[in-house]
């Protein structure tokens, strides 16, 4: 089952995002994800990775972030592990305000909201200074 798992370790730098994408694109190709699931996987990792890199290191500390994807019977399990400031991604944020007016539209917290909308499960655990966020993305059709 080794082929059904992909892991990449990168620096806590947004410039590393293409390396994360490349690993997950390879995983998607190997396990035969549909385009829809592949896109969701890439969107979710982008939101989580960019959140961590943007807000998790206010003092500019260096870190390595481990990103892995594994194929389950009816889901993809995406895991990010880092030593950033504690942050609980499992708390579902409020959705966008119900507005139909451009001026009233805001996007604060939208990234994590999207993650929760697409995922069946979002769990963050912190052990020994390591944040480990695990996301289950359904692979079955709705």
């Amino acid at each position: 089952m080794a082929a059904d798992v992909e892991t990449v370790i990168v620096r806590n730098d947004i410039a590393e995002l293409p390396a994360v994408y490349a690993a997950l694109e390879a995983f998607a190709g190997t396990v035969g994800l549909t385009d829809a699931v592949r896109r969701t996987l890439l969107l979710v990792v982008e939101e989580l990775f960019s959140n961590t890199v943007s807000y998790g290191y206010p003092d500019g500390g260096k870190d390595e972030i481990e990103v892995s994807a594994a194929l389950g019977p009816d889901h993809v399990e995406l895991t990010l592990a880092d030593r950033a400031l504690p942050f609980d991604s499992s708390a579902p944020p409020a959705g966008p305000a119900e507005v139909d007016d451009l001026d009233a539209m805001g996007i604060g917290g939208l990234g994590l909201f999207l993650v929760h909308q697409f995922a069946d499960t979002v769990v963050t655990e912190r052990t020994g200074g390591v944040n480990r966020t695990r996301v289950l993305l359904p692979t079955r059709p709705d």
Partner: protein
Amino acid sequence: MTADTSEITIEHRTEEGFAVVSPAGKLDTLSARTFEAYLKSLVEQKSGTLLIDMEKVDYVTSFGLRSLLIIAKLLAPSGDKLVLFQVNPSVYEVLKISGFLKILKVADTLAEAGEMAGRTG
């Protein structure tokens, strides 16, 4: 005019009397600023309503949505619009979940986008 980063390439042309912008790639945290700057430049050139051909945009993250919102707000005072067309199902889902379908116009084809752009309101 063209723009090219590792994440996105952008070009535009004039068609049906509108500026038609064709990004290709991902609209994410790495590319959104390039995309936004490109569209801002068109707004500054008084290009009017912008039709965005999304056929080659793989997915849009919250950073991409932010850029779309900024440009739509820039266009609004002059009565111009931002109309997306040929949006793939994944991008459509993101627009729907995020509430953007209520504030942006989305068409199936260029012709339909042109019709929407011509309407008031």
